[in-house]
């Protein structure tokens, strides 16, 4: 993603240059690029932590790290990947694409946009600093369950403050998306004409605004419990540690969909393009996304079936969770129907989208299994869960981000990436990710708990395979950076519509996209043309 914007200077008359261009950035493309570079950096840092974990788990016995540091690694890996890599990557893509797709010159609130981005480096600097203070980084899991999280040392207030900053950043970013989509659409661009990426992001933005503050509330209560003698979650003062889990997952489950809904949007753009056929069931896709978002508010307790819930509660959360399979199924079937009777070609973005389709579905199956409460009593907190959520987040969310980057890179930079290297990156990633995560299903079912630094010898074989997969997957991502760097520096010039089947307003712009996307706004004819192809 590096420097993708440096090449679109031709339209840039007034903007400052050099460092100031980025520090004072108000242009949606510059900010989008900043977000993507930031996300990429965090992806590699979080990935390095994952490799520490997998290196330690390569063999039984402790070879490299102390158990406490191991716990810090799992905790920080999760926080970095969720809040530092996937969410900012989506915000980056939203910044780049939403104005281009709805026919706007820029985001609605450019200065707010700058502020939401620049909060992030500070938030993550705070968080990463905890690695170097006495007592070490937070080690109680990213879920911060008390009383364990309250045992943390000096890292505790830094972590809470970092989470607050990330939360504010996400909320402001989400507000910007909502305002842009609601107010800045070009004439003729109705809500139900928007590309699905805008739709899923709009829904995501509302989810963010609704639940990030709840997380802020939960961690604030932790903070006051720790420092100011309140007893929200302390049994000794009449509080209840289980209540934290309820509040946390009330945020946490919608958060899962915050990570995955924009992926649905990207895939819904890419599959039609490379099938050379309009998306099947556009409206049902919108409604399915909205129902998934709604359902996400009433399933939270499926993360905590083992805390001892009454029968009625267990049944309710089991049924509501299973219900999510219905709109998700509708989406998968619609994608299949989009490919049916299409004319399919297999460029790198399509390959990533297809891997998403296959592997996300596998994650969906294990999700369905986890919804069955009695079976969950076995699966819960085992490697089966680890396999499940990595299947939906890595070949799910992360692959969709990569698909989106490959897909739109020619439009952003005006240059093509190397298709050969892109395909190599794809195959290495896909094979690596499966070797990495598929054996974890076996480990979990055989009884290996998650978040342990060392394990009994019966788990040795599959852990070794999993670690090999991790290193293959991890190092292949360096290739990703190389492919993009090479494309931006010396790629072939890209045509305005590098993909034969690409439709929508974003593809009506010249390549590379002008600095201020739609300035002047698109005429009704152009909008109508972009919209007509969409359906």
């Amino acid at each position, binding site marked *: 993603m590096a420097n993708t914007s440096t090449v679109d200077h031709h339209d840039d008359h007034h903007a400052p240059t050099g460092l100031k261009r980025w520090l004072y950035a108000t242009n949606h493309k510059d900010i989008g690029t900043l977000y993507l570079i930031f996300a990429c950096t965090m992806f590699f840092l979080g990935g390095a932590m994952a490799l520490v974990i997998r290196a330690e788990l390569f063999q039984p016995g402790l070879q490299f790290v102390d158990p406490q540091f191991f716990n810090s690694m799992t905790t920080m890996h999760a926080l970095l990947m969720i809040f530092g890599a996937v969410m900012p990557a989506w915000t980056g893509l939203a910044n780049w694409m939403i104005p281009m797709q709805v026919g706007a010159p820029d985001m609605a609130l450019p200065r707010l946009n700058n502020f939401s981005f620049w909060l992030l480096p500070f938030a993550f600097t705070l968080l990463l600093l905890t690695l170097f203070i006495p007592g070490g980084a937070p080690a109680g899991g990213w879920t911060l369950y008390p009383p364990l999280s309250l045992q943390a040392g000096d890292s505790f207030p830094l972590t809470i403050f970092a989470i607050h900053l990330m939360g504010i950043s996400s909320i402001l970013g989400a507000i910007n998306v909502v305002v842009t989509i609601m107010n800045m659409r070009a004439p003729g661009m109705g809500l139900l004409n928007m590309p699905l990426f805008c739709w899923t992001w709009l829904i995501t933005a509302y989810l963010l605004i609704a639940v990030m503050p709840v997380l802020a509330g939960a961690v604030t209560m932790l903070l006051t419990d720790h420092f100011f003698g309140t007893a929200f979650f302390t049994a000794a003062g009449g509080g209840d540690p*289980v209540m934290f889990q309820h509040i946390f997952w009330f945020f946490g489950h919608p958060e899962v969909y915050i990570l995955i809904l924009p992926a649905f949007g990207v895939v819904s753009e890419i599959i039609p393009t490379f099938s050379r056929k309009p998306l099947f069931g556009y409206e049902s896709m919108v409604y399915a996304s909205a129902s998934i978002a709604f359902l996400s508010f009433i399933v939270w307790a499926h993360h905590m079936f*083992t805390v001892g819930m009454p029968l009625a509660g267990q049944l309710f959360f089991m049924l509501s969770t299973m219900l999510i399979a219905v709109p998700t199924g509708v989406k998968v079937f619609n994608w299949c129907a989009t490919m049916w009777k299409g004319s399919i070609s297999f460029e790198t973005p399509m390959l990533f989208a297809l891997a998403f389709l296959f592997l996300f579905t596998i994650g969906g199956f294990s999700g369905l299994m986890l919804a069955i409460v009695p079976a969950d009593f076995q699966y819960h*907190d085992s490697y089966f869960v680890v396999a499940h959520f990595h299947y939906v987040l890595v070949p799910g969310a992360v692959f969709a981000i990569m698909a989106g980057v490959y897909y739109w890179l020619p439009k952003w930079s005006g240059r093509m990436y190397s298709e050969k290297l892109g395909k190599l990156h794809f195959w290495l990633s896909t094979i690596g990710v499966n070797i990495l995560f598929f054996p974890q299903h076996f480990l979990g079912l055989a009884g290996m708990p998650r978040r342990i630094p060392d394990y009994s010898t019966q788990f040795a074989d599959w852990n070794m395979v999993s670690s090999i997969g991790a290193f293959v997957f991890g190092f292949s991502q360096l290739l990703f950076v190389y492919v993009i760097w090479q494309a931006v520096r010396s790629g072939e010039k890209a045509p305005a519509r590098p993909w034969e089947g690409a439709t929508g307003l974003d593809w009506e712009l010249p390549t590379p996209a002008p600095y201020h996307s739609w300035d002047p706004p698109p005429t009704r004819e152009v909008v109508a043309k972009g919209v007509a192809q969409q359906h």
Partner: protein
Amino acid sequence: MTYVYRSIALLLALTVVASPLTAHAEWGDLNMPVGVTELSKEIHSLHMTIFWWCVAIGVFVFGWMIWSLVAFRKSQGAEPDVTMTHSTKAEIIWTVIPVVILVIMAIPAARTLIAIEDTRDTELSIKVTGYQWKWHYDYLGKDVKFFSKLDRTSDETRQLNSGLDPHAVPDYLLNVDNPLVVPEDTKVRVLLTAQDVIHAWWVPQFGMKKDAIPGTVNEIWFKVDAGKTGVYRGQCAELCGRDHGFMPIVVKVVSKQEFATWLAAQQTGATPTVASREPAPSPRG
């Protein structure tokens, strides 16, 4: 594309090369254990039922995808049918059928849940308390209580760079100094609580896990089938700090007679300070 094939070959080779490095081949450990209790068997069969449903749905969905990818390749001259944009009938079908399948899955799950919740007629109550990082077992009303923590050999081996080979330790990390002893064919009620942070008590062969939460008492029960005496192992399943990975659970299931002898031996020397009062306890059967 040669790059691609070469890298695939390399990966496969790596995987194959790595496999003989491990002495204890446990490649066969792929599935949930059937277990030795009524509930664990029920849960296992539920697990297999959902699994096969998922396989069936997977065959259909993946079959559809692969068929599309093969049959409608541009390279084979496929022409897109751009008029195919929606079909209300199809949408209804693929909404209703999944709902029906889900209901079919939910019914046995609900039945098993109700069985799990039925805590009547237990014959022995054991209070299990999680500590950082060991378990405490208290046979309620029997005046037998003890701590149970990782055995010394595992503990020495698991130290950072101990230089000791985990493969040489029998039941590495799954062995304790004092195992929990329970009789076979007896409905045992386990009361779970914790002293400091949240832990979770999990013996996969018993089919159940539940959190041990400070200030709260949770209950589960298990009844090991007659004839299934032996040693069953599990681990703490809720992150509880530094040594979360090092507080295993070992349950020794013995015959009723052996249990009575063991219990009596444990009680020797201890003065029973706690006894039953009030009308003789009503029969629990």
